[in-house]
């Protein structure tokens, strides 16, 4: 399956290579570099490339390319999903997935890759299992290791691989038993010029941080499970229970994990929390433009909208922006042509407004399209779909855990066309 892996930074340097079968020369990456050059954006590099003898499947994460070399037929999603899992593991281990951090921990990374694949076929991808075999680095341990000559490799053999619940470590113990769940919903919407909603949907995810001793068996039920249109689960969730009773029943992994993601059916009306009044004009004469944006609350369910931010990718011709904001501040990056207006909290009494002029390059025809506005926002303690967790029960262990659920609504791909 996966023959080799190359990690390539944004400059095109290969800073790590790992082969699971015989060695493939790194010159195979030249085909990739060619394609990379052709595509203007790194995002536009085709994920699957064909070379005379190999196939290259790559992902782009954190300004890095994970490039895998394949020799025979394999489902491309299999490889892509796996590469993302590798990146997730790095993120999990080192807090971020960047070149510097990987170079810092080259040996651990290499050991991880060794364990994750055997002969190119995924072996251990559960972070709980991996952490048993290779401990993630932390400062305290590296100090201790330096003093004692200890190591990062687990002394005990990983039992997790053998169990039927490979996602959970054996023998977990905590002084404080706690389980936290974050219900985060993102609104994906396209709003057109006139303010009507072209499309809107809600995507939700329940992230969990479970620190419970032993083998707890949790059951989470919702007040209104019928809202959920489409769901996907962490492998720990018993699907049949969900089918028959609409409850989530699971033995959780230890630590952080994504319990489920869901989708609220598009039949339901999606509450759009803010409205935007905008006018952006470019004038032929005088090579300038005007911009006027006002944001106001629409359906916020009585909560305050926070972290409001508007991002506009300006046309190339816009040289600079001379604007005044009644609230928050704005920045304009001349090289990337990004106008970012950071508003913060939305005050319904005094609506934030940004207006002013744009200076344009002379002699260049006006852009025919107005740039679209990307909106970021956050509403605490609200799941915009109305989803509510009704209860969380624990079986199998005797102690009383501390439980908590937090709701957040965010803007996902929230775009206003102008």
């Amino acid at each position: 399956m996966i023959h080799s892996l190359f990690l390539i930074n944004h400059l095109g340097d290969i800073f790590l290579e790992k082969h699971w079968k015989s060695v493939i020369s790194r010159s195979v990456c030249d085909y990739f570099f060619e394609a990379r050059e052709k595509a203007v954006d790194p995002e536009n590099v085709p994920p699957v490339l064909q070379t005379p003898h190999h196939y290259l499947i790559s992902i782009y994460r954190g300004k890095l390319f994970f490039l895998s070399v394949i020799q025979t037929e394999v489902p491309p999603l299999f490889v892509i999903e796996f590469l993302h899992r590798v990146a997730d593991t790095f993120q999990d281990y080192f807090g971020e997935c960047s070149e510097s951090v990987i170079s810092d921990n080259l040996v651990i990374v290499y050991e991880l890759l060794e364990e994750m694949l055997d002969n190119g076929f995924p072996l251990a991808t559960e972070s709980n299992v991996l952490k048993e075999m290779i401990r993630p680095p932390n400062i305290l341990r590296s100090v201790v290791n330096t003093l004692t000559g200890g190591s990062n490799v687990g002394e005990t053999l990983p039992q997790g691989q053998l169990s039927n619940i490979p996602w959970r470590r054996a023998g977990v113990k905590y002084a404080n038993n706690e389980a936290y769940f974050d219900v985060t919903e993102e609104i994906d919407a396209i709003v057109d010029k006139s303010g009507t909603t072209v499309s809107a949907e809600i995507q939700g995810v329940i992230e969990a941080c479970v620190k419970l001793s032993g083998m707890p068996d949790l059951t989470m039920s919702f007040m209104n499970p019928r809202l959920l249109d489409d769901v996907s689960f962490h492998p720990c969730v018993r699907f049949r229970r969900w089918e028959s009773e609409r409850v989530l029943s699971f033995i959780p992994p230890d630590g952080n994990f994504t319990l489920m993601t869901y989708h609220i059916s598009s039949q339901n009306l999606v509450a759009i929390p803010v409205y935007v009044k905008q006018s952006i004009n470019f004038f032929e004469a005088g090579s300038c433009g005007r911009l006027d944006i006002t944001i106001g609350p629409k359906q916020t369910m009585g909560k305050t909208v926070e972290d409001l931010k508007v991002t506009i990718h300006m046309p190339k011709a816009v040289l600079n922006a001379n604007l005044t904001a009644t609230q928050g501040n704005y920045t304009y990056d001349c090289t990337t042509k990004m106008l970012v207006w950071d508003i913060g909290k939305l005050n319904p009494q005094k609506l934030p407004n940004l207006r002013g002029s744009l200076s344009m390059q002379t002699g260049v025809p006006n852009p025919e399209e107005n740039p679209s506005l990307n909106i970021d926002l956050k509403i605490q303690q609200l799941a915009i779909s109305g989803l509510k967790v009704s209860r969380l029960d624990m079986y199998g262990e005797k102690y009383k855990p501390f439980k908590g659920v937090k709701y957040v609504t965010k803007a996902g791909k929230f775009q206003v066309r102008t």
Partner: protein
Amino acid sequence: MSASSAFNDEKGGSSSVGEPEYGHDPASGGIFSSDYKRHDDLKEMLDSNKDSLKLEAMKRIVAMIARGKNASDLFPAVVKNVACKNIEVKKLVYVYLVRYAEEQQDLALLSISTFQRGLKDPNQLIRASALRVLSSIRVTIIVPIMMLAIKEAASDMSPYVRKTAAHAIPKLYSLDPEQKDQLIEVIEKLLADKTTLVAGSVVMAFEEVCPERIDLIHKNYRKLCNLLIDVEEWGQVVIINMLTRYARTQFLNPNINESLLEEGGSGDKTFYGSDEDEDEDEEEKEKKAEVAAMAKRKPYVMDPDHRLLLRNTKPLLQSRNAAVVMAVAQLYFHLAPKAEVGVIAKALVRLLRSHSEVQYVVLQNVATMSIKRRGMFEPYLKSFYIRSTDPTQIKVLKLEVLTNLANETNISTILREFQTYIKSMDKDFVAATIQAIGRCATNISEVRDTCLNGLVQLLSNRDELVVAESVVVIKKLLQMQPEKHSDIIKHMAKLTDNIQVPMARASILWLIGEYCEHVPKIAPDVLRKMAKSFTNEEDIVKLQIINLAAKLYLTNSKQTKLLTQYVLNLAKYDQNYDIRDRARFIRQLIVPTEKSGALSKYAKKLFLALKPAPVLESPFKDRDHFQLGSLSHLLNAKAGGYQELPDWPEAAPDPSVRNVEVPEWTKCSSREKRKEKKVEKPFYTDSEGESGPTESADSESDSATGSESSSGSEESGSGSESEESKEASESEEEEEEEEEEEKKKKKKDLKKPVQESESEQSSEEEERKHQRKSKPRKSESESESDEDEESESESSQSESEDSESEAEVKKKKKPAESKPPPKPVKKESKKEKKEMSLLDLDDFEPAPSPQVTPVNTFLSNSLVTDLEGLSLSDSVLSPATIAPSSTLKSYELLHRITGEGLSVEYCFSRQPFSPDANMVAVQMQFTNNASSDTKNLHIEDVKLQSGMRVKEFPEIELLPAGETATAVMGIDFCDSTQAANFQLCTHTRKFFVSIQPPVGELMRPVFLTENEFKKEQGQLMGMNEITEKLTLDVKCRNEHTIVQRVTTAANLSRVPCGSDKECSPPLPPPDHPVHRFAGRTVTSGSLVLVTVATKEEGAAQLTVNCEKMVIGTMLVKDILQALTQ
């Protein structure tokens, strides 16, 4: 890359013993001269006897390898450390070995003995890792050793080692393909493995080594299907892809009969007004379709194994892993009946939220699917709308999908979207949009003019690319109806002055030439201009100029003769030989000379023939001959190692090849034992209905699959139970099996060479030894464990239960052993029972309303309930026997008068409907009061709310005058009280009738202890609990009547009070007893709990806890009525 910074980072990271005296990091490369010396350093460190130094050295070496630097000269120094005690050093040495062994084969041999020793280690993890490294070393000399190691590991007692063996198979195969035959043997053996851990890996090996040996799968097919949900994600992908191919060779095309499936397509609203049970619906639709098929006597019936595959893969659509979802999606696309494919759309649309690479692949597949099954994605049209922030390649693919989805109804919205896209800053995307508009216009004639006008407006766009693309598309559109659009052609002719894009220029010239009759004045003028600029044009434009000249010469030679001559002369000396050739050829053809042959007469016909309008097709058309989701599909070219998706067979191969013959009794007992365990700790709650295929005809294969599935779930279940105990139980069974086998002399391994079987035996002996060893270990661990006593006592309890159940099983076994064919016997007895009750029924049938039951009936009733509590599973003692037959209420279905002599009554017999556990059995009694015989009584034209299903009674051939007949049909009411409407047909008449169930009949009794009841009740609080105060009827104040009335009103069983005596001290019977009843709804199996708490003076409180609130409310009403009247 900045080497120095990397070096610094490196230092910081692998910090352990970062002393400065070792100088520069070798990994950072640098000056070669010092390289040699540095390696000396490393060698010294490796030779030292300090582990920390060795570790540091190995870390640096591995870092070098990671960066792609050559570290091969250190081989001798490193290989010495292969036996190092320190685990981390050892691991790093392994990493090094695997990387360089191929280059230094001789030296690598030094390490082999270490691994061979490792293979014999008592610890399974060490055995596994030794095998893993040994098989990863690509040294041809050790092939025999590897082969031996794999064979041994394949029969190891640890599933993890067996998994590693499966992984090793493709490694050995790639090293030495000669070993194929032997490896296939190992694969065959491992395929029979029952653990989920092994399944994925061995199928992987199968795919790499012998994908053509599909026959190896037969015996394991059902097991794989049943294990699937518990296999790890990556294994699932491989298995599903393989099973898709398998199914294509073994089953019939479910879409042979298109007409039959259309019926299943339309879904009505379910009773609860939401489509929460959509998947269930789908299944039921399918069954409905099947029923319809049966009624119409259509030939196609889906193989139950085919159905099994579809059913067991469906839950995986909910996987978090995109590859798994895609694998299921392609399986459904290639294998499922048309009506069912729709379920995958939702999951695929979900994946569009994922990383852009995932989106890219998914969209490619959606594009292919949407051509064949447009309807599937139509509801999700908006999910394919494009955002300005999408990467271009995603945009283009989304556009493709949108175009495929366009039809008459949605085209206006799509075109409005397209209009926004055209203004985008991303010009490649705009060009793609214009092409998409063109395709919509050609496919949907209604919007052709609108599109054309829109495109013409684009011709005045500032951006040349946009204009050029529009020209090309307009050209294609105009070809469809040129006569109407001469003004557009004129407009385009003017554009030649401005447009520089060669393709566009060429298109305009072609258009003018083709339709020069429509623009007789402009055409020669265009040619004049072109002749002027001929030399500066691109080749493609030059060719079209020649073309235009030729056409004009033929139609309008007076004006253009000279111009043509001029152009042809220019072309004659062109640098490009294509153009020179073309010019020469055309000159000969159109200019008549003495030498020119017969062809010139036909020149006009040649040039001005009517050309068919081009069909604008999706580039994804016909891509589905590649298996979707595969690399080959993505590239639209066959990738190496791609296995063609075979076509459906004409006739289905023998399905019996998948039957697994197993010693019936061992299986049965183990199954029951496992069920018991499952009750203790369910993991992936496999519902009973799931494990026993409902549709399968032959009972033997049923039991096989059933038991296997339960074994699968057991594997995943009992999570906390230690490996050893399970293994012990497993091996016990194996022993049993062995005995059986010896008895029955079923020698599958006769074929195997004697030697092997010997080795097997010895390994088994080893296993046993090991087991013995492990047992004390287990108890040790138990006593050591600082878990509370409770858990221990619990486990001991469960153990005792286990032993109890075993004893019970044995008891059962004994009588059965005397009667070898056990199954039929069981069935017969069941039948007898049924008939008995039927007789009873007949006696009591006339009773129109619930009557006071004799006390003894009730007593026996509760006795049976108690007995049931003792039995192992509720299916053993069928609750049918509990049903108080005397109190069955019968309803009229067809009155004597309306039925013209035929009267029909029905009642809910409260027996499990044996063909399908999810159905309510309805017993019908037909009485022929007419003077003539009635023939061919049967059901037709069943009209149901969506999700409901009906299993008809077998046709009654003849009902003589004055006679009475009974029949049982099953109806799945989907837990709703909606009526099932159908026509009752005789040979002469049809009567519209309907059956509406009282809510109390939608459930079946279950046995719960008081504690269980309270626990369950605790989970069904809040909205799920309905409480009602009431005053009991005067006649109804004693226990017996209350119980009787409640059980009459609803098919529930009583929860014995005080049944948990061992837990609580015996209490004196309270003055105001509380009665509890429990049941489950028939379709969804939701618990229904009823509590009647009596108080002073006939006051009482009725509480119903039910997840299905509607059922709860209705039930409260019914019981209230029963108790107060």
